[in-house]
Every structure is written in structure tokens, then in C-alpha cells.
């Protein structure tokens, strides 16, 4: 027993020692061919820290990604679940402060505020993401890719998946779902109590009011840049006015709002309202297949496009295995891994690849006929709007609480 346990341990120690030796050269990133990086990564372990609350995504990483990395690249992928990605960012902030040059996180799943916070503190190693072989399938010119909630990515994180805001309704009870603010107001007037939305600062509530903010003010561009109090004060009242007009026609007369997206889903599945919302465009299809949502459930988009964001993987400044992390990130972007991600509709639900760039024979993999409750990838991709910068979102949340909820 001891004998068999001892040898791998020695081997591991040698391995760790040799990793430590190469880490210094690798941190320059430049000047090394992909073959060299891949060779250095072989036989190593990669610690992948990711939000652990999405069971389907966990299963995708454990059952589909990890075995293939082991077979094809000799990499042992260790998934470490965190209940909040900001826990990992805080750990890195402390390590930065304490001057710890060799950490424990090789790769981290993140986007938005966490990436922004880390960028401010120089927590990310790079740039590396645009140099991955599979980056050729990604449209780095697209602001959906090169801006993460308005903040420039600059190759410090590699896109993994896309999420998009969708509306879900029951086609048996709603014939022609409202696609604009005016139509929504009209529909709510005729069907009092059958519509509502989650109360911000719930994630889905935030998305809903931001989506309507875009539509009511009929612009998107200004909210991508730095926060401008003047512009905000000028534009936001239009949204409040609309939401206040809508309020009396909402579920329970707008006296109260569901506390979360999950609470709204529950109202929908119990037929108390006719609509719900999601950030995973295939959520409705999956709920129908599980027998949770009615069979007549359908997904649709608001006119002019809906919010969409990208989730990425980043390599921390003190990642002990930067070569391995790059090989894993490259694998996550490979057409086969992305096709499987899209089939399972995990991570954010959608592939991050520009399917047009794929060779003909691979493209078919992504042309999945969506179930009747979902939309096609083409339709979703053609109707995407970027998220606003975090400060705009925070201002809207505060404004909603004081101008809509309390009035």
C-alpha cells in the first residue's frame, strides 16, 4: 500500500518541480509556439475554479470535457466549485497583496464585474486569448466578444459561451406576444394580472428593466461607455414613467413583484401569469422536456434584439500552470466542445464561436433543429444587444427602487 502510494507521489513532486522551472519563461507568453506550450502542458494538472451551482454545466465539465482532456492532451482537469465567483477574486486580491507568486487557481470562469475588479488590480495574466489556435473561429472584432460588460477584454480572457435574454410565454393563452413597450402596455391593460417581472436587484429583474430601458429610450450605444449622470437623469424618467403606467395592470395589481427569476418561473408553471424570462435561450425547451412547463410554451424576443453577454475563462497572474490553462481554454473553444456545449445548452446556453468561420462539415454540428419551445441559433445571433456597463445597471436598480417600487 505504502509502496504503491509512494511512487506517484515522487513522480508528482518531480512534476511540480519541473513546472515551477518553466513557469518563469512562460509568463512572457510571446515567442513560444503553440506546439511548445502544448508539449509543456502534457501530463500536468489544471485547477479550474468555477461557479458550482449549475449542475448541468458541472456534468458537462466532469463527464464530457475532463475525460477528453485526459485522453487527447494528457491533462488532468480538477474542477473546484465555488458558490460565488467573487470568492475566488477575493482570494486572488489577497494573494496579490501578500506577494504570493504561486497560487492555486489555473483557470477561472467569470465575466462582468469580476473581470473588471480583477483587471483594476492586475490579477489577470496575459494577453494570451487571441493567440489560441481556436481563436480563429471567434470573431474578436465583435464588441460582444472584445467587450465584457463594456470593459475591454484585450486578450486577458477567452470567450467560452454566450447567454441571451429571452421572453417565454404560453402560446395557448397568448396568441400574439407583445414585442415592444407599447404592445406590452396594451396587452397588460387587456389582460390585467397576467404579466409581471422579477424585482431588481434580482439578476433577471435587472435584465428586464435594462432591456426596457434600451427600448423605451430607443438607444443602446451611450450605455456602453463610461457612466454619465447627466445622460442618465435625462433618459431614466422615461423608463420609470412607462413602468409606473404598467404597474397597476401587473400581477396582484403591481403591489408586489416576484423576488427572483425562479419565483417568476414558479408563477408561470402554476399558470398564475402567462410570461416568464430567462438568460438561457433553451431554458423553456428544457423545462418542457422535463414536464415542468406546459407543452404549449414558446420562446420569443423583444423587437430590436435582446441583451446578451459572454462568459469567459481567465488565467490568474499567479497560476502555477499557465500552459495547461491555455490548452484547456483552447479545448473549450474547439468546435467539438462548443458543439457539445450547444447540444446540452450549458454554461450560458449558446456557443461563442462564429459559426460562419467553421469549415462546412463542422457547421452542420451547430445547425441543431431547436425544439418547438426554442428559437434557432441564427435568429438569436441576429438579434443581440450588448449589456450596459455595470454603473448604468446599478443606477437603474436604485432608480427602480425609489421611482417605481415605492410609488
Amino acid at each position, binding site marked *: 500500500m505504502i509502496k504503491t502510494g509512494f511512487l506517484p507521489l515522487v513522480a508528482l513532486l518531480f512534476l511540480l518541480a519541473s513546472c515551477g522551472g518553466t513557469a518563469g519563461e512562460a509568463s512572457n507568453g510571446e515567442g513560444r509556439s503553440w506546439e511548445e506550450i502544448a508539449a509543456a502542458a502534457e501530463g500536468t494538472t489544471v485547477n479550474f475554479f468555477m*461557479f458550482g451551482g449549475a*449542475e448541468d454545466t458541472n456534468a458537462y465539465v466532469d463527464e464530457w470535457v475532463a475525460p477528453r482532456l485526459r485522453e487527447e492532451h494528457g491533462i488532468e482537469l480538477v474542477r473546484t466549485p465555488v458558490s460565488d465567483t467573487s470568492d475566488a477574486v477575493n482570494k486572488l486580491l489577497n494573494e496579490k497583496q501578500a506577494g504570493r507568486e504561486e497560487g492555486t487557481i489555473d483557470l477561472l470562469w467569470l465575466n462582468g464585474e469580476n473581470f473588471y475588479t480583477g483587471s483594476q488590480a492586475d490579477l489577470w495574466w496575459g494577453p494570451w486569448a487571441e493567440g489560441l489556435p481556436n481563436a480563429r473561429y471567434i470573431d474578436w472584432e465583435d464588441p460582444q466578444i472584445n467587450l465584457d460588460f463594456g470593459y475591454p477584454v484585450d486578450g486577458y480572457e477567452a470567450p467560452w459561451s454566450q447567454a441571451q435574454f429571452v421572453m417565454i410565454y404560453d402560446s395557448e393563452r397568448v396568441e400574439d406576444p407583445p414585442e415592444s413597450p407599447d404592445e406590452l402596455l396594451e396587452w397588460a391593460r387587456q389582460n390585467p394580472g397576467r404579466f409581471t417581472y422579477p424585482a431588481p436587484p434580482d439578476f433577471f429583474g435587472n435584465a428586464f428593466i435594462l432591456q426596457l430601458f434600451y427600448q423605451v429610450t430607443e438607444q443602446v450605444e451611450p450605455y456602453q461607455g463610461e457612466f454619465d449622470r447627466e445622460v442618465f437623469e435625462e433618459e431614466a424618467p422615461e423608463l420609470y414613467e412607462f413602468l409606473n403606467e404598467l404597474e397597476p395592470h401587473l400581477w396582484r395589481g403591481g403591489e408586489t413583484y416576484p423576488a427572483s427569476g425562479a419565483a417568476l418561473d414558479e408563477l408561470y408553471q402554476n399558470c398564475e401569469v402567462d410570461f416568464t424570462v430567462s438568460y438561457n435561450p433553451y431554458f423553456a425547451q428544457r423545462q418542457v422536456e422535463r414536464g415542468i412547463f406546459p407543452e404549449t410554451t414558446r420562446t420569443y424576443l423583444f423587437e430590436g434584439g435582446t441583451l446578451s453577454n459572454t462568459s469567459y475563462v481567465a488565467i490568474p497572474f499567479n497560476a502555477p500552470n499557465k500552459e495547461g490553462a491555455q490548452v484547456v481554454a483552447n479545448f473549450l473553444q474547439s468546435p467539438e466542445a462548443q458543439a457539445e456545449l450547444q447540444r446540452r445548452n450549458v454554461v450560458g446556453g449558446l456557443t461563442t464561436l462564429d459559426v460562419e468561420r467553421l469549415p462546412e462539415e463542422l457547421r452542420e454540428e451547430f445547425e441543431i433543429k431547436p425544439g418547438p419551445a426554442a428559437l434557432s441559433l441564427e435568429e438569436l445571433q441576429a438579434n443581440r444587444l450588448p449589456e450596459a456597463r455595470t454603473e448604468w445597471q446599478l443606477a437603474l436598480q436604485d432608480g427602480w427602487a425609489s421611482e417605481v417600487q415605492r410609488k
Partner: protein
Amino acid sequence: MDKRNRSAGIALALAAVLVTTPLLPLALWSFAGEWRFPDLLPASWSLRGWEALLAPGSRFTEAVLNSLVIAAAVTAAAVVIGLPAGMALGTHDFRLKGVVIFIILLPILVPPLASTMGIHLTFIRLGLADTMFGVFLVHLVPTVPYTAIILTSVFAERTGELEEAARTLGAGPWQAFWHVTLPQVAPGVAVAGLFAFLISWSQYILTVLIGGGTVITLPMLLFSAASGTDPVITSTLAVVFALPAVVALLLALRYLNPGNERGFLGVGKVS
């Protein structure tokens, strides 16, 4: 059975019901296939939750083992540290005793997050961050105050007459402690140890900060599952998480029984 015994039995049974009833929905959820409002029981059953725990990559076994090893070590250390403190505070009166008690209690009065951020920086410099040993050390922060205070009250109830008698009969101080004091306070030590075990077992934020995700424990799996949307996985983990408390309750039912001569309440009474 006399009256006292029966009422104590009823009280214990009531306690058992109160402790286990909230766990019942968790146990049901962990075997549920489909369970929707307003059904009283799951519409179908499945082992999905348990299969997910044992699936490769779930790190469930590793987490349970880590939790057990850390909690056991913390229990032993917290009792060893808390016992002399409790003995001194419980049996002697001295100046500034209140201040000493205040300092001992300080770690549970200060929010753990505030102090742990600082501890984390120090631990990184000392190379203790991201190690099991570091997690063990930081778990002593919230546990030692409890063992010290519990043991203080245990010793405060004692008069020291038996030790005096032993000393009169020729026992040395160490012998008196080992043969007289320790067996007498054993039930109190067990309660203090149980406290330390359960506190360590349920630590989340300290483990996350100091263990940095490298040291995986059961609460870390539970918390990350609970932040998601799958009630089956979360409940399955919660059932395993609650097991030690249930075992402790069963042990208490067995040994706290007043009719039992070896019971907690029976020992120490010279009647």
C-alpha cells in the same frame, strides 16, 4: 419507571421529533424525481441526487473525508486547549477574571470575516494558506472559545472535595487529575468536543478563505449547490451534512437517558 424518568423520556422524544421533522423534506427531496407544487409527495422517485454525488469529478468523497479529518483534529485540539483554560477559570478566582473571559470570547464576538481577511494575508506569508493544516488552525478560532466556556461552567460546579480526598490519600496532582478529575468531567468534555466538532463541520467562509478552494469540504459543495437551482442535489448534500447532528442526537438519547447509570446526568451525583 418512575415519573421523573417518564417525563424525561417524553422530553427527549419531543426533542427528537423537533430535530428530525425539518429534515424530512430534505430526505424526500434527495430521492425525488419530479416534485411540483401543490403535490404533498414527489410524483416520481429517482436516485439522481445520489448518483451525482458519486459521479467522477463531484469530489464528494474527498470533501467528506477532508471534513471528517479536519473536524476530528479540531475537536481534539480545541478540547486540549479549552480544558486547562476552563479548569483555571472554573476553579480559581483571580483579579481581572472578567477581562480574561472577554478575551477568550472575543473570537466569537468579532465577525469572523473581518478577522479572517487579516489572518489570510498572514497565512499566505507563512505558507499556511491553501493547506489542510491552515484550515485546521483557522477552525480553532471559533471553536476554542466554546470549549473553554463550556468547560468553565463544568468546573465551576465542582467543589474539588474529591481531589482533596485523593490528595489526602497520597495521590500526586497529576494522578488526582487523571484518576479523579478527568473521569468526573468526562461528560462535560464530551459535550464541549461535540460542539467543537459540529462548529468545525459546518464552517464555510473560514474554509473558503484559508483553504482557497484547494481544500474541499462538504459545506463548500453544499453552498455551491445551494446557490444553484437544483433542489435534488442540494438536498442530498444537506442530508449528508446533517448526519453528524443526527448521530449526536442518537448518542445523546442513548447516554443522556436518566435511567442509564452511565448517563451524563447520573455521573458526578453523590447520592
